[in-house]
């Protein structure tokens, strides 16, 4: 199988947008064979687990690569210089090494994003006036989120849509101007951005004593959590303040869960109740597993999430995250991160060792 036919296959699967487990399995295995053949470190990783295209017959058995591996390995089927885009993960405090994710072509990423975004966020509306609380791709060329949000603006935004982050943070004047314009014209408005940018926006607006009654049909998309970049709020506090400051009901406040290590995103159906159920389109499947054995957790028990994303063609389609979740009937609940452990006794944990010795970042 070459990359072109795999791409064509997948694009038609995305276009059809119909759950078809047999087809999902076929494409996943086909991709596994392709990735195994063209991605040496991944082949080594799979072999070490006794998994080869010959032995794997179900997509569930495709070895899931832990996201930490992206920091040390070049997991790409194409040569890095042939890649159309390179997205990088943000470094954490204990380890500033950033994971690299190469996309040979972004056409599948774009198709996946557009189809899913249109269905889950736009909900039938073709275009809306949008404000993006995140830097542009020009400012952050390796940020998948900057790319994603710009894609939303280009494909689903009306001509007045704009990025609202300037050199010194939120461009408050433009934000207020856009919100006031929407309030005046009655045209629904969509505010999209990192969760922490929205908190900064809330804080600045509160300082000014400014709130706005956005017209019916307006909506908000937040993603990524607070990451120590803003105040930490509980989901209820966060969505309550969004709702009261912008007059957008909580069921129109959509949270997107995405990862640089994936090409498909998950959404909830608003946050009238938190935590909300997240789900993705038919070309991504999520399992809740015991991270040590990879076995599925009994339904209703917390485990670590494994995503198999058929749109992630150039890298690996299955990844083991550090996110904790619980399976639900129509998706999963996201409960938080499973990283950054400290020792329970008096021995030293790796992270602490790295910090103590100043080796963090190596």
């Amino acid at each position, binding site marked *: 199988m070459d990359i072109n036919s795999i791409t064509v296959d997948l694009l038609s699967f995305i276009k059809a947008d119909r759950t078809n487990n047999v087809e999902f399995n076929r494409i996943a295995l086909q991709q596994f064979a392709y990735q195994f053949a063209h991605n040496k*470190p991944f082949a080594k*990783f799979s072999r*070490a687990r006794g998994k080869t295209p010959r032995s794997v017959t179900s997509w569930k058995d495709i070895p899931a690569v*832990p996201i*930490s*591996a992206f920091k*040390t*390995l070049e997991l790409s089927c194409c040569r890095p210089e042939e890649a159309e885009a390179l997205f990088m993960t943000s470094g954490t405090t204990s380890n500033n090494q950033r994971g690299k994710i190469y996309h040979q072509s972004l056409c599948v990423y774009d198709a996946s994003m557009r189809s899913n975004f249109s269905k889950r966020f736009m909900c039938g509306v073709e275009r809306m006036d949008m404000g993006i609380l995140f830097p542009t791709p020009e400012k952050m060329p390796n940020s998948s989120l900057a790319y994603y949000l710009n894609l939303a603006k280009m494909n689903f935004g009306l001509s007045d849509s704009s990025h609202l982050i300037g050199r010194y943070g939120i461009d408050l004047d433009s934000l207020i101007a856009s919100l006031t314009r929407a309030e005046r014209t009655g045209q629904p408005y969509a505010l999209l951005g990192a969760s922490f940018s929205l908190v900064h926006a809330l804080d600045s607006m509160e300082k000014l004593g400014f709130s706005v009654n956005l017209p019916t049909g307006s909506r908000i998309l937040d993603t990524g959590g607070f990451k120590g970049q803003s105040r930490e709020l509980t989901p209820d506090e966060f969505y309550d303040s969004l709702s009261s400051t912008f007059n957008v009901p909580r069921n129109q406040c959509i949270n997107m869960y995405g990862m640089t290590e994936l090409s498909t995103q998950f959404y909830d159906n608003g946050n009238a109740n938190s935590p909300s159920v997240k789900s993705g389109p038919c070309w991504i499947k999520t399992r809740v597993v*015991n*991270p*040590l*054995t990879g076995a599925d957790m009994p339904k209703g028990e*917390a*485990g*670590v999430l494994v995503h198999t994303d058929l749109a992630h063609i150039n890298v690996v389609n299955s990844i*083991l995250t*550090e996110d*904790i979740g619980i399976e639900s009937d129509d998706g999963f609940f996201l409960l938080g*991160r*499973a*990283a*950054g*452990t*400290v*020792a*329970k*006794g*008096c*021995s*030293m*944990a*790796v992270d*602490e*060792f790295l910090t*103590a*010795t100043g080796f963090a970042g190596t």
Partner: protein
Amino acid sequence: MIIEHAGYLPGVDADSVDRQAKLYGREGAKISVLLPVLHERQVAQLVGHVRDQARLKLKSRPIGQIIDAIDLTISRLLDREDPYRRRMDHLLPIITGYDREMVRLGLTSYLKTFRKPQLLRFLSEDFMNPTILDGFQPLPKGGLGCAFGPKILTHVWAGNVPGLPLWSLVAGLLVKAGNIGKIPTAEPMFASWFSQLFAEVAPELADCLAIVWWQGGNEGIETAVLNESDLVLGYGQNESLEAIKRRLPVTKRFLAFGHKVSFAMVSAEALNASKASTTAQLVAYDVARYDQQGCYAPHIVFVEHGGSVSPEKFAQYLAYELAVFEEKFPLRPLSLAEASGIVSWRNKEEMIPGGKVFCADSGSWAVSHQTEENFLPSCLNRTIRVVGIDALTKVPAILAPFSDLLQTAGIAAPPEKLVTLASSLGEVGVTRVAAIGDMTSPEAGWHHDGRFNLLDLVKITEIDGRAEVAADQFASYDD
């Protein structure tokens, strides 16, 4: 459900103390611990009471009697039928998740190091003449000296390894201090039970110690306690120790015991077919015991090339032995964060060129074999790194950059090598050399992190030799 009261609060009306319930254990075996939630006023009352009682009852008591009281308490705890010991055997595994047999055997061997002969050794390790704690004794340089413990010694404990608070609590009693022990949420009961039993066994000393708890970060209570203390012993992460230090007035003393890293070394002489498997078994024991949560447990084993068993083969032996221990003493249930940590560690180790990881299907242990000669900790919970090395004499240089963090070296080597290695390890900061298999059970009187456990706690008041002579001229018998 079983409910236990944590803490020991003499001088405070028990009914007036608020309690916060915390659940431990898993489905089918749960226990609820009621942690004391003290108010600043109660803290002041408690500390004042302990200070007064210690001055009245402890200072004038001969050290021998204090030893007897501790010894009696320990003998009760060594008796498997004693109600306190039964509660420990039954409930500590539920609280900590550690295997029941491992806790039971561990407690017995640990408590044995606090019997009277061991306590005497503990004392004589630091004081040539332990009665210096009772009154003025001649000093070798001339004159007289008497050792005074702090009026209030505060212990801030951390971690879930059962029994660890006993070291410093006993040290505090031996130097006749009034003791305030802050129990960790991870394991709040051992110190509580010990103190409750001690009060039962030695009612006359019952009010000289208190066991308290506060939620980490509760600055009000913490500051109140710290302000009342003369000396503070802190255990745990550097970050929390820093926080204590910042809050402590400059006139108070603070002894910090931060987290440490330990390791093992196996020389070529210990690597013939028969000795290698015994050594692997002993390393596995040190790894399995309390799942490496103690600071004396090995993170890494340096294995010398040149024996008939290669370092990689040794890693396989070790893997086998860990599998055997898993049958005998299973790993405690891990949190998802801990499990994810292991996956990420295993994965990183595997990716290092030349690296090889042997691990259980269940994920309950992992051995990583590496050829690159460097020092990186494992991620604990029965994960260990085996590093092949040309000569063990190269190890100290590898460790040198981590000098502040080193603690125990477990060594399997012939006598002359043991001493040579110990000397160069000491130079780079290692403070304890043990036989492999004994790494996790320090002997009575050991110097924790290279310090004097008792001597560090006291102040000596000395009577200058000339003062004695000068005093003579004022005596009634002076001519």
